[in-house]
Protein backbone atom coordinates (compact mmCIF):
# COMPACT_ATOMS: atom_id res chain seq x y z
CA UNK A 1 0.00 0.00 0.00
CA UNK A 2 2.91 2.30 0.69
CA UNK A 3 4.21 1.66 -2.79
CA UNK A 4 0.82 2.03 -4.43
CA UNK A 5 0.56 5.79 -4.28
CA UNK A 6 3.86 7.19 -3.06
CA UNK A 7 2.96 10.70 -4.13
CA UNK A 8 -0.72 10.81 -3.19
CA UNK A 9 -0.16 13.49 -0.52
CA UNK A 10 1.78 15.65 -2.93
CA UNK A 11 -0.92 15.37 -5.57
CA UNK A 12 -3.66 16.40 -3.17
CA UNK A 13 -1.41 19.25 -2.07
CA UNK A 14 -1.16 20.35 -5.70
CA UNK A 15 -4.94 20.02 -6.19
CA UNK A 16 -5.60 22.21 -3.15
CA UNK A 17 -3.03 24.72 -4.34
CA UNK A 18 -4.67 24.86 -7.77
CA UNK A 19 -8.14 25.26 -6.25
CA UNK A 20 -6.85 28.18 -4.19
CA UNK A 21 -5.08 29.69 -7.17
CA UNK A 22 -8.23 29.39 -9.29
CA UNK A 23 -10.27 31.20 -6.63
CA UNK A 24 -7.72 34.01 -6.46
CA UNK A 25 -7.51 34.45 -10.23
CA UNK A 26 -11.07 33.73 -11.36
CA UNK A 27 -13.28 35.15 -8.65
CA UNK A 28 -13.97 38.87 -8.42
CA UNK A 29 -15.24 38.88 -4.87
CA UNK A 30 -12.47 39.97 -2.55
CA UNK A 31 -13.55 37.90 0.44
CA UNK A 32 -13.64 34.87 -1.85
CA UNK A 33 -10.18 35.74 -3.10
CA UNK A 34 -8.87 35.86 0.45
CA UNK A 35 -10.50 32.53 1.30
CA UNK A 36 -8.86 31.12 -1.82
CA UNK A 37 -5.56 32.55 -0.65
CA UNK A 38 -6.09 30.84 2.71
CA UNK A 39 -6.68 27.51 0.94
CA UNK A 40 -3.52 28.06 -1.06
CA UNK A 41 -1.73 28.70 2.22
CA UNK A 42 -3.02 25.48 3.80
CA UNK A 43 -1.69 23.55 0.81
CA UNK A 44 1.71 25.00 1.64
CA UNK A 45 1.33 23.74 5.21
CA UNK A 46 0.62 20.32 3.76
CA UNK A 47 3.61 20.56 1.45
CA UNK A 48 5.85 21.05 4.47
CA UNK A 49 4.25 18.60 6.87
CA UNK A 50 3.73 15.51 4.71
CA UNK A 51 7.40 14.97 3.78
CA UNK A 52 8.21 15.24 7.49
CA UNK A 53 6.12 12.19 8.32
CA UNK A 54 7.96 8.90 8.73
CA UNK A 55 5.78 5.82 8.45
CA UNK A 56 5.97 3.92 11.72
CA UNK A 57 7.30 7.00 13.45
CA UNK A 58 5.50 9.03 16.07
CA UNK A 59 5.03 12.63 17.12
CA UNK A 60 8.30 14.33 18.12
CA UNK A 61 7.57 14.42 21.83
CA UNK A 62 10.28 12.30 23.32
CA UNK A 63 9.44 9.33 25.48
CA UNK A 64 11.33 6.19 26.35
CA UNK A 65 8.79 3.94 24.64
CA UNK A 66 9.55 5.13 21.12
CA UNK A 67 12.63 5.37 18.95
CA UNK A 68 11.38 6.64 15.58
CA UNK A 69 10.08 10.20 15.47
CA UNK A 70 8.77 12.27 12.59
CA UNK A 71 10.72 15.33 11.58
CA UNK A 72 10.07 18.19 14.06
CA UNK A 73 11.48 20.98 11.90
CA UNK A 74 8.54 21.44 9.48
CA UNK A 75 6.20 21.44 12.49
CA UNK A 76 8.03 24.41 13.96
CA UNK A 77 7.92 26.36 10.70
CA UNK A 78 4.23 25.68 10.04
CA UNK A 79 3.04 26.20 13.61
CA UNK A 80 4.17 29.80 13.51
CA UNK A 81 2.97 30.18 9.92
CA UNK A 82 -0.61 29.33 10.90
CA UNK A 83 -0.83 32.13 13.45
CA UNK A 84 0.99 34.52 11.13
CA UNK A 85 -1.50 33.41 8.46
CA UNK A 86 -4.47 34.48 10.56
CA UNK A 87 -2.84 37.85 11.28
CA UNK A 88 -2.19 38.47 7.58
CA UNK A 89 -5.70 37.27 6.69
CA UNK A 90 -7.01 39.83 9.17
CA UNK A 91 -4.91 42.51 7.49
CA UNK A 92 -6.34 41.58 4.09
CA UNK A 93 -9.86 41.58 5.46
CA UNK A 94 -9.28 45.00 7.02
CA UNK A 95 -8.29 46.28 3.57
CA UNK A 96 -11.48 44.74 2.15
CA UNK A 97 -13.54 46.56 4.76
CA UNK A 98 -11.87 49.86 3.90
CA UNK A 99 -12.37 49.26 0.17
CA UNK A 100 -16.02 48.52 0.82
CA UNK A 101 -16.38 51.78 2.73
CA UNK A 102 -14.69 53.75 -0.04
CA UNK A 103 -16.35 52.13 -3.05
CA UNK A 104 -19.48 50.50 -1.64
CA UNK A 105 -18.52 47.20 -3.13
CA UNK A 106 -16.20 44.28 -2.60
CA UNK A 107 -16.44 43.03 -6.17
CA UNK A 108 -13.27 43.72 -8.09
CA UNK A 109 -15.12 44.55 -11.33
CA UNK A 110 -17.31 47.16 -9.65
CA UNK A 111 -14.34 48.74 -7.93
CA UNK A 112 -12.53 49.01 -11.26
CA UNK A 113 -15.63 50.56 -12.85
CA UNK A 114 -15.93 53.10 -10.07
CA UNK A 115 -12.30 54.09 -10.65
CA UNK A 116 -13.08 54.91 -14.26
CA UNK A 117 -10.90 54.17 -17.27
Amino acid at each position, binding site marked *: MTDLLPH*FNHWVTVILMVVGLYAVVARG*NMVKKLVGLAIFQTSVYLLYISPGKILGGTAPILSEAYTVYSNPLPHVLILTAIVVGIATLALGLALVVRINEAYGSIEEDEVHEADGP
Partner: protein
Amino acid sequence: MTTVGSPEIELLLNAILLLLMVVAAIGVIRLRNLFAVVLLSGVYSFLMATLMVALDAVDVGMTEAAVGAGMSVVLLLSVLGLTRTREAPTRRRPIVPLIISVVVGIALVHGTMDLPPFGDPNAPAQRHVAPEYLARAQVETGAPNVVTAVLASYRGYDTLGEVAVIFTGGIGVLVLLAGLGRYTGLRTRPPGAPDPGPEPKPVPLMEETVVLRVAVKLLLPLILVFAMYVQFHGDFGPGGGFQAGVAAATAIILYGLIFGIPAARRVAPMRVVLFMIPLGVLIFAGTGVASLLLGGNYLDYSVLSSVPRSGQHLGILVVEFGVFVTVSSTMLGIFYAFASRPPRDGPEPS
Protein backbone atom coordinates in the same frame (compact mmCIF):
# COMPACT_ATOMS: atom_id res chain seq x y z
CA MET B 1 13.32 -0.11 15.69
CA THR B 2 10.09 0.18 17.60
CA THR B 3 7.22 1.22 15.42
CA VAL B 4 3.77 2.21 16.60
CA GLY B 5 0.32 2.01 15.08
CA SER B 6 -0.33 0.27 11.81
CA PRO B 7 0.88 2.07 8.69
CA GLU B 8 -1.99 0.76 6.55
CA ILE B 9 -4.69 2.35 8.70
CA GLU B 10 -2.71 5.56 8.97
CA LEU B 11 -2.35 5.72 5.20
CA LEU B 12 -6.03 5.05 4.64
CA LEU B 13 -7.05 7.67 7.21
CA ASN B 14 -4.65 10.10 5.61
CA ALA B 15 -6.11 9.44 2.15
CA ILE B 16 -9.75 9.77 3.26
CA LEU B 17 -9.05 13.02 5.11
CA LEU B 18 -7.26 14.43 2.07
CA LEU B 19 -10.19 13.54 -0.19
CA LEU B 20 -12.68 15.13 2.22
CA MET B 21 -10.50 18.23 2.23
CA VAL B 22 -10.60 18.41 -1.54
CA VAL B 23 -14.41 18.10 -1.43
CA ALA B 24 -14.64 20.88 1.16
CA ALA B 25 -12.22 23.11 -0.77
CA ILE B 26 -14.13 22.73 -4.02
CA GLY B 27 -17.36 23.41 -2.13
CA VAL B 28 -15.81 26.58 -0.70
CA ILE B 29 -14.92 27.78 -4.18
CA ARG B 30 -18.21 26.86 -5.84
CA LEU B 31 -20.71 28.28 -3.34
CA ARG B 32 -21.85 31.84 -3.98
CA ASN B 33 -23.30 32.34 -0.52
CA LEU B 34 -20.30 33.75 1.37
CA PHE B 35 -21.88 32.80 4.68
CA ALA B 36 -21.88 29.14 3.65
CA VAL B 37 -18.30 29.62 2.47
CA VAL B 38 -17.29 30.69 5.98
CA LEU B 39 -19.03 27.69 7.51
CA LEU B 40 -17.34 25.31 5.11
CA SER B 41 -13.95 26.85 5.65
CA GLY B 42 -14.43 25.97 9.32
CA VAL B 43 -15.00 22.33 8.32
CA TYR B 44 -11.96 22.49 6.06
CA SER B 45 -9.76 23.80 8.82
CA PHE B 46 -10.84 21.08 11.24
CA LEU B 47 -10.10 18.40 8.61
CA MET B 48 -6.68 20.00 8.31
CA ALA B 49 -6.21 19.81 12.08
CA THR B 50 -7.08 16.11 12.17
CA LEU B 51 -4.82 15.42 9.22
CA MET B 52 -1.96 17.15 10.99
CA VAL B 53 -2.46 14.90 14.02
CA ALA B 54 -2.53 11.88 11.71
CA LEU B 55 0.74 13.11 10.19
CA ASP B 56 2.32 13.29 13.68
CA ALA B 57 2.33 17.09 13.75
CA VAL B 58 0.42 17.36 17.02
CA ASP B 59 1.55 20.90 17.78
CA VAL B 60 0.49 22.07 14.34
CA GLY B 61 -2.83 20.24 14.71
CA MET B 62 -3.45 22.03 17.98
CA THR B 63 -2.66 25.42 16.47
CA GLU B 64 -4.91 24.78 13.50
CA ALA B 65 -7.72 23.63 15.82
CA ALA B 66 -7.34 26.71 18.02
CA VAL B 67 -7.31 29.10 15.07
CA GLY B 68 -9.88 27.37 12.87
CA ALA B 69 -12.53 26.56 15.47
CA GLY B 70 -13.14 30.09 16.66
CA MET B 71 -10.91 32.88 15.52
CA SER B 72 -11.05 32.59 11.73
CA VAL B 73 -14.83 32.04 11.69
CA VAL B 74 -15.35 35.09 13.90
CA LEU B 75 -13.01 37.17 11.74
CA LEU B 76 -14.63 36.26 8.43
CA LEU B 77 -18.13 36.71 9.84
CA SER B 78 -17.35 40.17 11.16
CA VAL B 79 -16.19 41.16 7.69
CA LEU B 80 -19.32 39.73 6.08
CA GLY B 81 -21.34 41.76 8.56
CA LEU B 82 -19.56 44.89 7.40
CA THR B 83 -19.83 44.12 3.69
CA ARG B 84 -22.25 41.66 2.12
CA THR B 85 -22.90 37.94 2.19
CA ARG B 86 -23.70 37.25 -1.43
CA GLU B 87 -21.12 37.03 -4.17
CA ALA B 88 -22.12 38.80 -7.38
CA PRO B 89 -22.24 36.62 -10.47
CA THR B 90 -18.92 37.06 -12.16
CA ARG B 91 -18.81 38.75 -15.52
CA ARG B 92 -15.52 37.32 -16.63
CA ARG B 93 -14.99 34.11 -18.48
CA PRO B 94 -13.59 31.50 -16.11
CA ILE B 95 -11.88 29.67 -18.96
CA VAL B 96 -8.53 31.51 -18.92
CA PRO B 97 -7.99 31.18 -15.15
CA LEU B 98 -9.04 27.55 -15.43
CA ILE B 99 -6.42 26.88 -18.09
CA ILE B 100 -3.77 28.71 -16.09
CA SER B 101 -4.61 26.75 -12.95
CA VAL B 102 -4.67 23.39 -14.71
CA VAL B 103 -1.35 24.06 -16.45
CA VAL B 104 0.26 25.10 -13.15
CA GLY B 105 -1.21 21.99 -11.54
CA ILE B 106 0.16 19.67 -14.21
CA ALA B 107 3.58 21.28 -13.97
CA LEU B 108 3.59 20.86 -10.19
CA VAL B 109 2.43 17.23 -10.39
CA HIS B 110 5.24 16.59 -12.83
CA GLY B 111 7.58 18.14 -10.28
CA THR B 112 6.39 15.83 -7.49
CA MET B 113 7.60 12.78 -9.41
CA ASP B 114 11.15 13.53 -8.31
CA LEU B 115 10.25 13.82 -4.64
CA PRO B 116 10.99 10.93 -2.29
CA PRO B 117 7.96 8.71 -1.58
CA PHE B 118 5.66 9.54 1.33
CA GLY B 119 6.81 8.33 4.73
CA ASP B 120 10.29 7.33 3.60
CA PRO B 121 12.65 7.38 6.61
CA ASN B 122 15.68 7.78 4.31
CA ALA B 123 14.48 10.89 2.49
CA PRO B 124 17.05 13.73 2.42
CA ALA B 125 14.79 15.89 4.58
CA GLN B 126 14.95 13.29 7.33
CA ARG B 127 18.76 13.04 7.24
CA HIS B 128 19.71 16.69 7.64
CA VAL B 129 19.27 18.51 10.96
CA ALA B 130 16.27 16.63 12.35
CA PRO B 131 18.26 13.72 13.88
CA GLU B 132 20.48 16.28 15.60
CA TYR B 133 17.51 18.07 17.12
CA LEU B 134 15.91 14.80 18.23
CA ALA B 135 19.13 13.59 19.82
CA ARG B 136 20.09 16.82 21.55
CA ALA B 137 16.90 18.65 22.41
CA GLN B 138 16.01 16.93 25.66
CA VAL B 139 19.58 16.76 26.88
CA GLU B 140 20.28 20.41 26.18
CA THR B 141 16.97 22.07 27.02
CA GLY B 142 15.14 19.60 29.24
CA ALA B 143 12.00 19.85 27.12
CA PRO B 144 10.72 16.49 25.84
CA ASN B 145 8.65 18.28 23.22
CA VAL B 146 11.27 18.78 20.53
CA VAL B 147 8.98 21.14 18.62
CA THR B 148 8.88 23.55 21.55
CA ALA B 149 12.64 23.26 22.05
CA VAL B 150 13.38 24.01 18.40
CA LEU B 151 10.74 26.73 18.25
CA ALA B 152 11.90 28.67 21.27
CA SER B 153 15.56 27.87 21.52
CA TYR B 154 17.31 26.50 18.43
CA ARG B 155 15.31 28.60 16.01
CA GLY B 156 14.55 31.42 18.43
CA TYR B 157 15.53 34.07 15.90
CA ASP B 158 13.00 32.72 13.44
CA THR B 159 10.23 32.72 16.02
CA LEU B 160 11.12 36.23 17.12
CA GLY B 161 10.67 37.27 13.50
CA GLU B 162 7.31 35.53 13.29
CA VAL B 163 6.11 37.22 16.47
CA ALA B 164 7.23 40.54 15.00
CA VAL B 165 5.16 39.76 11.88
CA ILE B 166 2.09 39.03 14.01
CA PHE B 167 2.72 42.28 15.87
CA THR B 168 3.00 44.17 12.57
CA GLY B 169 -0.14 42.54 11.19
CA GLY B 170 -2.09 43.44 14.31
CA ILE B 171 -0.87 47.02 14.23
CA GLY B 172 -1.77 47.19 10.53
CA VAL B 173 -5.34 46.08 11.19
CA LEU B 174 -5.69 48.54 14.07
CA VAL B 175 -4.37 51.41 11.97
CA LEU B 176 -6.62 50.53 9.05
CA LEU B 177 -9.80 50.01 11.03
CA ALA B 178 -9.47 51.79 14.31
CA GLY B 179 -7.07 54.66 13.56
CA LEU B 180 -5.28 53.79 16.81
CA GLY B 181 -7.23 55.96 19.18
CA ARG B 182 -10.32 57.01 17.36
CA TYR B 183 -12.47 54.00 18.05
CA THR B 184 -10.20 52.27 20.44
CA GLY B 185 -11.46 53.93 23.57
CA LEU B 186 -8.09 55.58 24.18
CA ARG B 187 -9.71 58.91 23.39
CA THR B 188 -13.44 58.83 23.20
CA ARG B 189 -13.84 62.26 21.58
CA PRO B 190 -11.57 64.88 20.09
CA PRO B 191 -10.60 67.74 22.43
CA GLY B 192 -13.03 70.62 22.25
CA ALA B 193 -15.83 68.60 20.73
CA PRO B 194 -19.20 68.89 22.41
CA ASP B 195 -20.11 66.31 24.98
CA PRO B 196 -22.03 63.63 23.09
CA GLY B 197 -24.06 62.86 26.18
CA PRO B 198 -24.32 59.47 27.82
CA GLU B 199 -22.87 56.45 26.04
CA PRO B 200 -25.34 55.07 23.54
CA LYS B 201 -26.80 51.92 24.97
CA PRO B 202 -25.96 48.89 22.90
CA VAL B 203 -28.88 46.60 22.22
CA PRO B 204 -28.25 43.37 24.10
CA LEU B 205 -28.49 40.76 21.43
CA MET B 206 -27.85 37.38 22.92
CA GLU B 207 -28.46 38.44 26.51
CA GLU B 208 -32.01 37.21 26.58
CA THR B 209 -30.90 33.67 25.89
CA VAL B 210 -30.50 32.49 29.48
CA VAL B 211 -29.19 29.06 28.55
CA LEU B 212 -26.34 30.54 26.56
CA ARG B 213 -25.43 33.02 29.27
CA VAL B 214 -25.24 30.39 32.01
CA ALA B 215 -23.41 27.88 29.85
CA VAL B 216 -20.88 30.44 28.70
CA LYS B 217 -20.26 31.56 32.27
CA LEU B 218 -19.47 27.94 33.11
CA LEU B 219 -17.33 27.49 30.04
CA LEU B 220 -15.23 30.66 30.19
CA PRO B 221 -13.08 29.77 33.22
CA LEU B 222 -12.55 26.30 31.76
CA ILE B 223 -11.24 27.74 28.49
CA LEU B 224 -8.94 30.16 30.29
CA VAL B 225 -7.59 27.51 32.66
CA PHE B 226 -7.07 25.14 29.77
CA ALA B 227 -5.26 27.86 27.86
CA MET B 228 -2.92 28.24 30.82
CA TYR B 229 -2.39 24.47 30.87
CA VAL B 230 -1.58 24.52 27.15
CA GLN B 231 0.81 27.40 27.76
CA PHE B 232 2.81 25.95 30.61
CA HIS B 233 2.61 22.32 29.61
CA GLY B 234 3.93 23.19 26.17
CA ASP B 235 7.40 21.79 26.81
CA PHE B 236 6.05 18.38 27.83
CA GLY B 237 3.11 17.94 25.48
CA PRO B 238 1.56 19.63 22.50
CA GLY B 239 1.05 23.31 23.13
CA GLY B 240 2.83 26.58 23.69
CA GLY B 241 2.39 30.30 23.47
CA PHE B 242 0.82 30.39 20.03
CA GLN B 243 -1.97 27.92 20.78
CA ALA B 244 -2.63 29.24 24.27
CA GLY B 245 -2.69 32.84 23.05
CA VAL B 246 -5.32 32.12 20.44
CA ALA B 247 -7.38 30.07 22.91
CA ALA B 248 -7.32 32.78 25.58
CA ALA B 249 -8.28 35.46 23.07
CA THR B 250 -11.12 33.25 21.83
CA ALA B 251 -12.44 33.02 25.39
CA ILE B 252 -12.70 36.80 25.66
CA ILE B 253 -14.27 36.92 22.19
CA LEU B 254 -16.88 34.40 23.33
CA TYR B 255 -17.65 36.63 26.30
CA GLY B 256 -18.01 39.59 23.97
CA LEU B 257 -20.30 37.71 21.63
CA ILE B 258 -22.71 36.82 24.41
CA PHE B 259 -22.56 39.83 26.73
CA GLY B 260 -21.77 42.51 24.19
CA ILE B 261 -18.49 44.02 23.05
CA PRO B 262 -18.54 46.78 25.72
CA ALA B 263 -18.68 44.11 28.41
CA ALA B 264 -15.69 42.38 26.87
CA ARG B 265 -13.89 45.71 26.76
CA ARG B 266 -14.43 46.15 30.46
CA VAL B 267 -12.79 42.77 31.03
CA ALA B 268 -9.90 43.34 28.65
CA PRO B 269 -9.76 47.06 27.88
CA MET B 270 -8.32 48.22 24.59
CA ARG B 271 -5.72 50.19 26.54
CA VAL B 272 -4.38 46.96 28.04
CA VAL B 273 -4.51 45.19 24.68
CA LEU B 274 -2.54 47.97 23.02
CA PHE B 275 -0.01 47.79 25.82
CA MET B 276 0.33 44.02 25.56
CA ILE B 277 0.84 43.77 21.80
CA PRO B 278 4.37 45.27 21.87
CA LEU B 279 5.05 43.95 25.39
CA GLY B 280 5.24 40.35 24.18
CA VAL B 281 7.73 41.20 21.45
CA LEU B 282 9.75 43.14 24.02
CA ILE B 283 9.78 40.19 26.44
CA PHE B 284 11.04 37.96 23.63
CA ALA B 285 13.66 40.39 22.39
CA GLY B 286 14.56 41.37 25.96
CA THR B 287 15.40 37.77 26.80
CA GLY B 288 17.85 37.90 23.93
CA VAL B 289 19.37 41.10 25.26
CA ALA B 290 19.60 39.59 28.74
CA SER B 291 21.53 36.61 27.42
CA LEU B 292 23.72 39.02 25.47
CA LEU B 293 24.48 41.03 28.60
CA LEU B 294 25.27 37.86 30.55
CA GLY B 295 27.97 37.03 28.07
CA GLY B 296 26.25 34.63 25.74
CA ASN B 297 25.00 34.98 22.19
CA TYR B 298 21.72 36.66 21.38
CA LEU B 299 18.85 34.33 22.41
CA ASP B 300 21.31 31.79 23.80
CA TYR B 301 19.55 30.96 27.05
CA SER B 302 22.29 28.76 28.50
CA VAL B 303 23.81 31.73 30.33
CA LEU B 304 20.55 32.64 32.10
CA SER B 305 21.26 30.19 34.89
CA SER B 306 24.35 28.62 36.38
CA VAL B 307 23.33 25.28 34.86
CA PRO B 308 23.02 25.65 31.07
CA ARG B 309 20.17 23.16 30.89
CA SER B 310 17.94 24.96 33.38
CA GLY B 311 18.91 28.24 31.76
CA GLN B 312 17.59 26.89 28.47
CA HIS B 313 14.38 25.74 30.14
CA LEU B 314 13.89 29.10 31.82
CA GLY B 315 14.53 30.89 28.56
CA ILE B 316 11.98 28.75 26.74
CA LEU B 317 9.34 29.47 29.38
CA VAL B 318 9.95 33.22 29.30
CA VAL B 319 10.00 33.38 25.52
CA GLU B 320 6.81 31.32 25.22
CA PHE B 321 5.16 33.72 27.65
CA GLY B 322 6.18 36.60 25.42
CA VAL B 323 4.63 34.80 22.45
CA PHE B 324 1.44 34.27 24.46
CA VAL B 325 1.20 37.95 25.38
CA THR B 326 1.60 39.19 21.82
CA VAL B 327 -0.57 36.55 20.14
CA SER B 328 -3.49 36.80 22.56
CA SER B 329 -3.57 40.59 22.57
CA THR B 330 -3.17 40.82 18.79
CA MET B 331 -6.07 38.45 18.19
CA LEU B 332 -8.21 40.36 20.66
CA GLY B 333 -7.21 43.71 19.18
CA ILE B 334 -8.13 42.48 15.70
CA PHE B 335 -11.53 41.34 16.95
CA TYR B 336 -12.18 44.67 18.67
CA ALA B 337 -11.14 46.56 15.55
CA PHE B 338 -13.60 44.66 13.35
CA ALA B 339 -16.40 44.59 15.91
CA SER B 340 -16.32 48.33 16.64
CA ARG B 341 -16.66 49.24 13.00
CA PRO B 342 -20.11 50.64 12.21
CA PRO B 343 -22.10 47.86 10.55
CA ARG B 344 -23.65 48.49 7.15
CA ASP B 345 -26.95 50.29 7.53
CA GLY B 346 -30.20 48.96 6.29
CA PRO B 347 -30.67 45.93 4.15
CA GLU B 348 -27.79 44.28 2.44
CA PRO B 349 -27.03 45.57 -1.05
CA SER B 350 -27.77 42.86 -3.54
